[in-house]
Every structure is written in C-alpha cells, then in structure tokens.
C-alpha cells in the first residue's frame, strides 16, 4: 500500500470514527441523503465509510479533520526541531572550544550509552505491555484539550478513539519517539563532524573513577563492529602515539553504529508496524454507532428493486397512446415535480399535461415519503430533464430549499433542472414569486433556470402550455 493510499485509507476510518462517536453518544444524524449516496457500496465497510464521508462533508467534519491533521503536523515538526536543536547543543557541550581536550568517555556515555538505555527501556515497556502513559501521549491529549471549536474537538476525539480501539498508539508513538531521537542523534553527529573538521581537538581518555583497564575494556568492546570495517582501534595508553584524527574518526563511527543505526532500525520497524496496522484497519460492525447501520445497509440491498420503474413503464405506456413513437420506454421521459401543491391544484395540472403533445411523468411532492420517492426516481435516470413546479403562493423556506438542493446533488445537473415559480391565484394573492427567485438564486450554488408563471382565471391548460414551451 502506497503512502497516499494508506493516508486516504486512514482518513476514511478517521471520518467514520468521528461520525460513529457522535452518533453513539448523541444520537443519529439525519442521514437519508448520505445513505442514498452510500447505496452503491459493495460491502458494509464501504457503506459505513461513504455514509460517514457524506455526513462529514455536510457537517464540516472534513474541515475539522484537516485542521487537526495540520495541528498535529505542526506540533510534530516543532518537536523534531526541538530534538535537532538539543542534538546540536549536546554535541557543542561535548566539544568545548577552549578548555583542553574532548573527553572520549563522556562522549560515549552521552551519545551511545544513554541512547542505548532508552531503547532498551522502550523495548521492555513494549514487551511488558503496561500502558504507562508516555509524555508524548500526554502531550497529544493536552493539545486536544486546547481545541475550542466543536467541529475540531469532535474530529480530535474521533481520532483519539480510533487509535485506541485499533491499537495504533504504540506503533504511532514509537514512530514519533524514534524519529525524535534519530533527529537528535543525527544533529549531534553532524555537529561533531563539522567541529572536528573545522577545529583541532585533543582527546583525553582518563576519568576519575574508571581505571585504564576499564577504559581499555570499553574500547575493545566498542571496537568489535568498527573492526569489521577495517578501522584501527585508538591507542589510549598514556605516552603512546596519540593520533587525534584517528580517534575522531573512531568516535564518529561508533556513534553512527551504536546510536544512529539502531534508532533507524527501530524507527523503520515502528513505521512498518504502523503501516501494517493502518492497512488492516477494520470497521467493527458490532460497535455501537455502526451496528445500528446494518438494517439500513440491508434495506439498501432490497431497495435496489424499487417499485418506481414499474410505475414509470405504466405511465409512459399510457401516454404513448397519444404520442406513439417519440418517447423511449422509461428513464428518458421528462419528470415534472409539483412541490407543495394542494391535491386539487395538482389534479388540474395533471389534467392539463394530458392535453400536451409531450409525455411527462408527474409527481406530487408534499410529504416526506413523496420526497424520498421523487429522489429515488431520479437516481434511476439522473440525466432526464426535470421541471420543479414550485407553489409560489407559499413563503419560501428551508425545507423546500433543501429538497431542491438534494435534487441537484442527486444528479439532476443544472442543465436539466428547471424551476417554475407558479402562482395559481394571482387575482387574490400576495406576490411572493420574487422572494422565491431571490431566495433560490441566493442559496442554490449551481445556476438554475428559473421562470415564473401565473394561472390566470383558472386556465391551467394555458399555463401548462406556456410552461412546456419555455422548458423545451
């Protein structure tokens, strides 16, 4: 799995976790539209993820996730910078410019022994498996507690839950810790190297506590690996031939072999471990928040056989009597949706359409069930021409707007979607048509074809003829 692919894989699990956490604690989202989008998913996991992505987009959680990702990246980079600076500082403190010689033993202890000890401790902690909170984990939670925007908080909490449930903490924190140490050691090594290149250093071996034998033993042990590369061991006997250049090379090699190399290995190990874990991330259908989606997923498979096409056939064939050859059998017949019309007005409209030369499929869209049905028909043939006849005597409101928006999302491309604002009682009524036009152009991002019409003196046929003329 490539880097980018793994990243997007992780992101979609993160998104699902965010949505799941909210739904499990606060209750479900209104997901009719998201489920409609997720309907094409082949398995439950994809179904959950597509639905979650859709909901996340609707509620801006995708932005929250991006924000938290960015925050974590910035913190990570800051940590690495800090580690690098510490490395440089450590190296400088080991090689004082004026005061005499560099203590080789000190350098070995600070750069190799301490590092080795930490690696061993990390290994033990992993083997023993206790969940002692590491400072990094604590820092992560501290960082998240500073978030204020609820969208960001939800994104962060989702992440935290995901890495706990999928056991990503150890490989994750391991990767970060090792990369920090690696940065520190590399920076220290580079600094040492540069200093040895530009200045003339003397090296001293003796220490207060360690005898010459001890030191010789230490050097002999350390020299095992460099010896394979043909490096000669430094001569530490007092009075012996004293070669600072040789010592410097030896010291640099030892740091590289005993400090930097093991860290690289650990880091790579953790990274692979993490990648493997991310690769095997799963959606656990028994978790609360996911388990409730199973019925919807199964229903989705039933719903593929929607009753709409049958009705459509009927409709089309009944109208073919008057217009035998122009219309193809079903999903090309134009759709006319009547939004919020009383039954008798709708009957008048239908009647008027029957006197038109073109066959259309009319639907009254008042109730929630009717809205669902209308959207389902559209999924079957998203590229058919669609006319929405709005009852412009009513006040515009968010509910109707949402329905029109979901039509555009459902694949009614703006080229096919026409809106007719119809006032059926212009003689008596207040004019809200202009309000509708303004409202729609303000809130529907895709450019719409909006026309306004009036039913004058109850002449429905004239209005429908006019509608039809404008539309086609």
């Amino acid at each position, binding site marked *: 799995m490539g880097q980018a692919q793994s990243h997007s894989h992780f992101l979609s699990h993160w998104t699902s976790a965010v949505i799941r956490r909210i739904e499990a604690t606060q209750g*479900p*989202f*209104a997901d009719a539209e998201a489920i409609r989008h997720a309907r094409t998913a082949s398995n439950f996991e994809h179904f959950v993820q597509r639905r979650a992505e859709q909901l996340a987009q609707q509620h801006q959680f995708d932005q929250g996730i991006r924000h938290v990702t960015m925050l974590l990246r910035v913190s990570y980079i800051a940590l690495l910078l800090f580690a690098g600076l510490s490395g440089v500082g450590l190296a400088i403190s080991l090689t004082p410019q004026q005061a005499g010689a560099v203590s080789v033993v000190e350098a070995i202890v600070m750069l190799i022994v301490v590092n080795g000890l930490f690696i061993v401790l990390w290994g033990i902690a992993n083997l023993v498996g206790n969940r002692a909170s590491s400072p990094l984990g604590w820092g992560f939670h501290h960082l998240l507690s500073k978030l204020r925007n609820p969208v960001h908080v939800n994104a962060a909490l989702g992440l935290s839950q995901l890495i706990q449930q999928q056991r990503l903490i150890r490989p994750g924190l391991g990767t970060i810790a090792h990369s920090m140490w690696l940065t520190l050691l590399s920076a220290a090594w580079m600094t040492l190297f540069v200093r040895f290149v530009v200045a003339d250093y003397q090296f001293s071996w003796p220490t207060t506590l360690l005898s010459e034998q001890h030191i010789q033993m230490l050097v002999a042990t350390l020299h095992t690996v460099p010896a394979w590369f043909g490096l000669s061991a430094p001569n530490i006997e007092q009075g012996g031939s004293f070669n600072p250049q040789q010592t410097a090379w030896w010291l640099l090699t030892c740091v590289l072999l005993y400090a930097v190399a093991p860290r690289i290995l650990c880091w790579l190990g953790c990274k692979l471990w993490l990648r493997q874990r991310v690769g095997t991330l799963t959606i656990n259908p028994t978790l609360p928040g996911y388990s409730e989606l199973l019925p919807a997923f199964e229903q989705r498979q039933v719903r593929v056989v929607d009753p709409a096409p049958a009705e459509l056939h009927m409709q089309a064939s009944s109208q073919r009597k008057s217009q035998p050859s122009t219309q193809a059998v079903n999903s090309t017949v134009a759709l006319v949706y009547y939004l919020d019309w*009383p039954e008798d007005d709708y009957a008048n409209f239908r009647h008027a359409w029957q006197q038109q030369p073109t066959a259309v499929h009319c639907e009254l869209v008042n*109730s*929630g069930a009717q*809205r669902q049905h209308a959207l389902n028909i559209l999924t079957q043939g998203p590229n058919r021409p669609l006319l929405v006849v709005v009852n412009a005597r009513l006040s515009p409101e968010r509910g109707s707007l949402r329905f029109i928006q979901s039509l555009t999302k459902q694949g009614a491309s703006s080229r096919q979607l026409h809106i007719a604002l119809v006032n059926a009682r212009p003689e008596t009524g207040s004019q*809200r048509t202009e309000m509708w036009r303004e409202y729609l152009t303000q809130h529907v991002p895709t450019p719409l074809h909006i026309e306004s019409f009036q039913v004058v003196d109850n002449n429905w046929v004239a209005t429908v003829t006019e509608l039809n003329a404008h539309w086609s």
Partner: protein
Amino acid sequence: MDSIKLAIVGHTNVGKTSLLRTLLRDATFGQVSDQPSTTRDVSVARVEWQSSVVEWYDTPGLEDGVGLYEYLQHLAQRQQLRHDGPKLLQQFLASPEADASYAQEAKVIRQLLQCDAGLYVIDTRDPVLAKFQDELAILSMAARPLLPILNFSSSPESQQSAWQQALANVNLHAWVAFDSVTPEAQGEALIYANLATLLPTRRALLSAWQQEIQQRRTQRQHAASQIIAELIVDCSALRLHTTTQDADALNQQVNDLQQLVRQREQHATNSLFKLYGFSVDSVDINALQLSQGRWQHDLFNPHSLKSFGIQTSKVAAGGAAVGAGIDVMMLGTTLGGATLLGATLGGAWQSWRSYGQRVKDKLRGYRELSVETSVLKLLVARCQQLTRHLDSRAHANQSPSTLTVDTAELADFEPFFEHARGFPGWSSIASAEQFQRFQPSVATTRSRLASRQNDDPERQHLVDKLAQRLTLQRIESK
C-alpha cells in the same frame, strides 16, 4: 411571583412576531418582514402586573417540518421511543442535528418544552399541506397545550374552514381567529379566555389578566384625554402682548404665535404616540403618514379648516394670518366676554385680579394675540381622531393609514375655550426656553404675564372636566 410562559410558534412568515406586537402593544418588538426566517433567535417580552408575570416568547419559524418529522421518526425507531413525545424531543435536542440541520427548529422546541402553552400561528391563506401537518405533529409531541391562532382570517383567501378541519383531525378543537393586522376588539380577550380553558390551573390568573387588559385600555383612554385637554387649555389661554402698530411686525408676531401652537400640538401628538406604544421617531409615524393626506395640512392653513368644515372668522391681520385673533382695545368683545364668563364659571378672585391687570394693559395701548376658536376646534378634532385611531390600530400594522376627522359636536367645547381664555397665565406654552429661542422681544413682553399659574386648582378643574368631555365624545361617536 406567579408567572405564565407562553411560546408563539408556527411556520415561517405566518405573522408570529406581528401577533406578539399586537398583543404587547409594542410596534417595535422584534423584526417583522415579508422575508422568511426574519426572526432567528428566541426573544422574550415580560409583562408584569401586581405579583404576576406573563412571559411571551417569540420563536423563529419552523422551516423544515417534513425533514424534522422524518428525522424524529428515525430517532424514535432507533431509540425505541414511539410513544413518549417529550422524551423523543429531548433526545432530538441532544442529538447532533439539533445544532446542525434543525438548529432553528430545535430552538422552537426547546422553548415550547419550557413554556406552559404554545400559540400556534397559522396563515390561513395557505392550503393545508403535508408540511404543516408534520409541523403540528411535531409540536403535539411536546405535550403542551396548543392554541391555534388562525391569522389572516379577514383575508379573502382565508381557508379557515379547511384549517379548522385539519386541526380537529389532530384533536385541536379550541382555536381563535385573529387577524394581527386588523384585529377585532374582543380578539385579544378570546385568546385569554381560550388559554384559561387550556390551562385550568391558571384560570384565575388568566381571567384577572383579561380584566386588567380592559382596565389598562380605559386608563389609556383617560390619559389621552388629559393630554388633549392640557393642549387645549394651553392653546386657549395663550396670549401674546404686543405694542407694535406696524403691520409687518405684527405679522411676524402672528407667525410666532402660530409656530408656538404648532409645537405644542406636536408635543401632544408625541405624547399620544408614546402612550399607545407607537414610538415617535421610528417607522410608526411614517407608517401612519401624518405627513401625508389631510393630516399634512397646517393647522393655520385656511384650506385645512375648511376641509374639516370649520368656519373661520374674518378677523385676520393684513389677511395673512388665520386663526390668530387680534384683540384690539375693545372691551366687551373677546376680552370682556371671555373674562366675564371665566369669572362666572370659576368664581375665584384670581380671575378678577387677572382681569384688572389686563384692563390696565389695554388702557396702556397693548394689543393681544390669541388663538382663534376655529383653530382650537380643529385641534380637538385632530387629536380626538388620532387617539381613536391609535386605540384601535394594531401594533402589527405596517401599512399607512389616512385619518378622517369628524367635527360634529365641536361646538360643545367652546365654553371650555372661553373659560381658559380668561386666564393667560394658565398657558404653559410660552414660558419655556423654547419661546426664548423663538423671539426674544415677544418673550420679554410676555414674561410679565407668565406668572406661572399652571398649578392653579381652577385650571386643573377645567382640564379634568374637559378631559371627561373628550372621553365621552370619543365613546359616543364610536
């Protein structure tokens, strides 16, 4: 403190805020417009009386009843809450959608759950559609008494009976037809009466409120009469002294007098507006269009008087001024009659003292400018009409209106004018600094007479009697 909380709920743009404006008699409450979702927050108006409070909550409109009803069903299915409406609504309020797609609806429901009852406002011009029925179903889940208000009931398009049927279908049998822009007089009382039925435990409080509202109305009417009576006495008693013989200077002083009266009238109109809760400097005056139509005519414009059918006397200085009587040294005309009448009516020694002072002035060659009876009549007619209008006008009404003035029975007020004329000191008009600003020369001459007799008990007596007469006239002419 005993309190009742009432929420105004309903679809967007059906006149919720308008209804509250009318019920509160506050034309500035909230924001009213033709646009949907004008009100976005819940706002509260507290009305206190003795130890009880009625809190009215204006809520934003329900805009997606269909979507919310589906979501609630979805919730109910998931949480096994088919038959516990309030609990289901609580679940909804805790759900993520209560801050997202249905945040506005959540505000309404949260408020309704905290209130004793809800007034569900319906635009009866709308057909009964699925979305409104879904709304009703949602609101019924709150298990709060709902009183449907059939708004726009006086519109020709009103489909009131269809709505009554739809309400009966969900067991809402008590409703009130109330047009918040052109309300009937008892409409408000009907609302309280129905609320009392819906909230039996609050019946005592609600019917007390109903009485209180009636009482407040009467009080306002009396207060209005007082304001007008003060205006009339001030204008009747107003007299400017002048010694000039020059016609131009005299004209100037007549203009001054007119200006003073105009200002005084403006002041009284403002007080009336304030009394009835229409703010002076906001849209309301414009809405009433005082500056248009007949009202626009200047008080001293001959056309103005004529259009009200008031006869003007021909006594005008140089033909320029109407309505300012010039009392030359002719004892027995204005001065004599007025003073003698005043003296007989009041019978107090002050009138004789004042009379003596004025006789002295006349003998020294002063002349007096005063406001003509025709103008005083017009003042009465205009103010009476405005009061009647303000009293019945809904605070939700945003359309302009023209006032027609009925001048019948104005003759009855003449004795009051005459009485006040006898006491120039009773007029509070020109004693203020505003007069100084006006014309210093007149101010100095007049200040001799402005001996601040405003708190004279006899004056008060006259004002009270005049106010009573004004109230009576308004009631009779209704």
